[in-house]
């Protein structure tokens, strides 16, 4: 069993490396295709040809971009993410704090949204076809069809401006105590939960319904098991694979896709960092962010697969 998982993990890590390489190249070429380079963008309106040339030279941008890219890749192998072109700081330093922030937010959101999504999805499946079920379905579609920035703005207006319960900004800098932490995270987490839950609810519902239709669930019913027991002990463990997979896909959004939330709540995370990096054509920073998103995406999928395997004795004992 452990050998199987070890083999799977090894294989996936191999694939991950290849994917990372592909993404790195793709991002590089995309950056190259974008008009303008760091020097030009940094100088902005003041970008006269001589000024650009001078700055490029001083930043060692006069080497071919591809060479710099390879150099960066080489550095990556030794764990060196390089220096940001835009402000000449270590990319690792720039990212570290913000990645921690992003992970924190993603973590809290996960803690909050996953149980809710599971509960709603499972209960909707249990009462399939009922008014409750229909309500949940309509709710999920409505939630995803309200633009994220609207949810966020509304939340701020209600909770921060009118009620003054929560701060309008979520600067995680000087937090004291759990209560303060909860206050600070409340609004971004609510907004993000809206965004990521819908998909999870729908998939959970579908997966649980699939298993509720099986003969072994009917058998459990005929053994006199309660509805609760049927769902929790018989249906859920067998629906875990697809559910976890859907969760992984939804949660992968929490790192790179939260730009709107980061903007509105002024939360310093990696999504905004990446946008900054793109707008300044800061190749090392763009690349590093892209790698982080890619790795987190692949890791989540790997975890989902491992959970699916652990949940399924047939796979587990192969």
């Amino acid at each position, binding site marked *: 069993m452990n050998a199987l998982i070890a083999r799977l993990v090894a294989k996936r890590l191999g694939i991950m490396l290849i994917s990372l390489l592909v993404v790195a190249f793709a991002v590089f070429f995309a950056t190259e295709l974008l008009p303008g380079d760091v020097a030009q963008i940094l100088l902005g309106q003041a970008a006269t040809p001589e000024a650009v040339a001078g700055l490029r030279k001083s930043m060692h941008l006069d080497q071919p971009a591809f060479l710099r890219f390879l150099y960066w890749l080489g550095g990556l192998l030794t764990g060196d993410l390089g220096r940001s072109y835009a402000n000449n700081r270590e990319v690792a330093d720039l990212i570290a704090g913000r990645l921690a922030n992003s992970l924190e937010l993603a973590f809290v959101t996960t803690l909050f949204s996953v149980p809710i999504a599971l509960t709603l999805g499972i209960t909707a499946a249990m009462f399939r076809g009922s008014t409750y079920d229909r309500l949940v379905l309509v709710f999920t579609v409505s939630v995803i069809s309200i633009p994220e920035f609207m949810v966020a703005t509304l939340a701020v207006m209600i909770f921060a401006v009118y009620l003054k319960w929560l701060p309008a900004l979520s600067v995680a800098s000087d937090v004291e105590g759990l209560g303060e932490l909860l206050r600070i995270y409340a609004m971004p987490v609510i907004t993000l939960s809206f965004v990521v839950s819908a998909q999870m609810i729908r998939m959970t519902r579908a997966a649980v319904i699939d298993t509720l239709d*099986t*003969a*072994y669930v*009917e*058998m*459990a*019913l*005929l*053994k*006199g*098991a*309660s509805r609760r*027991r049927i769902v929790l*002990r*018989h249906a859920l*463990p*067998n629906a875990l694979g697809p559910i976890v997979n859907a969760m992984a896909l939804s949660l992968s959004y929490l790192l790179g896709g939260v730009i709107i939330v980061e903007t509105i709540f002024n939360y310093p995370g990696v999504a905004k960092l990446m946008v900054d990096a793109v707008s300044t054509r800061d190749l090392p920073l763009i690349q590093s962010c892209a790698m982080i998103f890619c790795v987190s995406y692949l890791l989540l999928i790997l975890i989902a697969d491992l959970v699916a395997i652990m*949940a*399924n*004795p*047939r796979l587990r*004992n192969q």
Partner: protein
Amino acid sequence: MGNVVEIRDLHVSARTDSGRTVEIIKGVDLNVGAGEMVALIGESGSGKTTIALTLLGHTRTGCSIRKGSVRVAGRDVVAMSGAERRRLRGRQVAYVPQSAAAAFNPSQTIMDQVVEVAKIHQLMPMEEARQKAIGLFRALALPDPETIGLRYPHQVSGGQLQRLAAAMALIADPEVMVFDEPTTALDVTTQIEVLRAFKSVMRERGMAGVYVSHDLAVVAQIADRIVVLKGGEVQEEGATEQIVTAPKHGYTRALIDAFHPRPHEAAATERPGPETPVLEVTNLTAGYGAIGRDGRPEYLALKDVSFRLERGRSLGVIGESGSGKSTLARAIAGLLPPAIGQIRMDGVELGRRTKDRSKEDLRKLQIVFQLADTALNPNRSVGAILSRPLTFYHGTRGRECEAEVDRLLDMVRLPKALKHRLPPELSGGQKQRVNFARALAARPELILCDEITSALDTVVAAAILDLLDELQRELGLTYVFVSHDLSTVEAVCDRVLVMYQGEKVEEMPTSRMKSGAEHPYSKLLIASVPQLDTGWLDGLDRERASPGAEAGR
């Protein structure tokens, strides 16, 4: 002492997708006395399962008990509250499902599921329940009774699972056991073991039972009384002996007739001599899994099989489940490239896989699968399914094609109007006919039939077999007929080939099958076919000292 089960004027209705309500059980009465085993038989869709489930106060989604009462141990389950019904289930009435493989939760150990009833109803401490389960395993002649409970469902064989399902039902010492076709999915050798185990346990504990089946021979072994159902109504009811030997109702007679296969008559034009065979298979070896360095797959399902088959003849392939019968058919059809060996059709060697074969070769050799449900695309009309091979192989289109489809439907005795239906709208027998007609549409010379009647009830199966026989005579077809059911093989084949663990153990003419089998496995297989004789199973027990070890594998 009164009846343990009393059903009075039971009406069950179902709501169809289009919102109509149809009555599927139309006023059934049923009594089961203490210690009595009553069998419900009838064709597919006659309402057997529906009635059996009402004993537990359960109806499938969309169905509801409209009228009548179902009294179990004196209490009416129809009138019970949900909580009361939950208390009844598992404890007073227990259910053994048709397919144990599907009825076990794949992610829990067997022991957990067997003792679950005790846990739900808090009948005894868990340790005690486990000990009791082990005792049941032993009583049901399961191997390794101490440890088998620790395995997961996929780690035991189908026959064992079926017995484990019985153990699961027996754990709470219920007053009534409900068996829903518990052996239909098993092969004959396993079926015997399971039947025997059921019978002895039931007898020992003096339980009452309801046994659902469409197989008269099986029912004859185990039931005290038989109730014959059709279209949700009771046709005939009587003691087993009476039903089997002196059926009164016409439908019952048809059932019993269908059981006695008409022996196959060898093809009329017995051509002699050294004509090139239609199909010649030499040293065929095939399997599944990764291909090793020696070119052999990891797991060999077929080892060194050879045979010849002449035009207009049919060859039966028999053997227990997993013996490699389907693998043989798939290898011949080119769906599973063989590792070693050749397949010749009309003396010409065929490509290893379908891709390597010419369209003409593909046309001449058609394969028909066991489960018509999965072999027919549920979303294409019968007409479309049948016209595709016509267009594909012969370029027939338009009106001509329509006419040809009509002719095919006629050939398999289906009304033309069926053309516009989708497969899910057909009955099992109809589906299998369409499945077969599709093969005929190619105008093949050789048809590989993989258990095409196993999933059908006897009456329908007999009709299909007749049809096969007739078409062979009319069109000069050659069949390879895969089955685990000897009587069907007997009905259509000239020769039989016995398979065991991927190897051909014996080949002989059908006529010699009963008397002339030499290999011990062939003998066991042939002796395991239930006879329509109430004393057969008991007689067999006396004959043979210990239950066969094979079935427990």
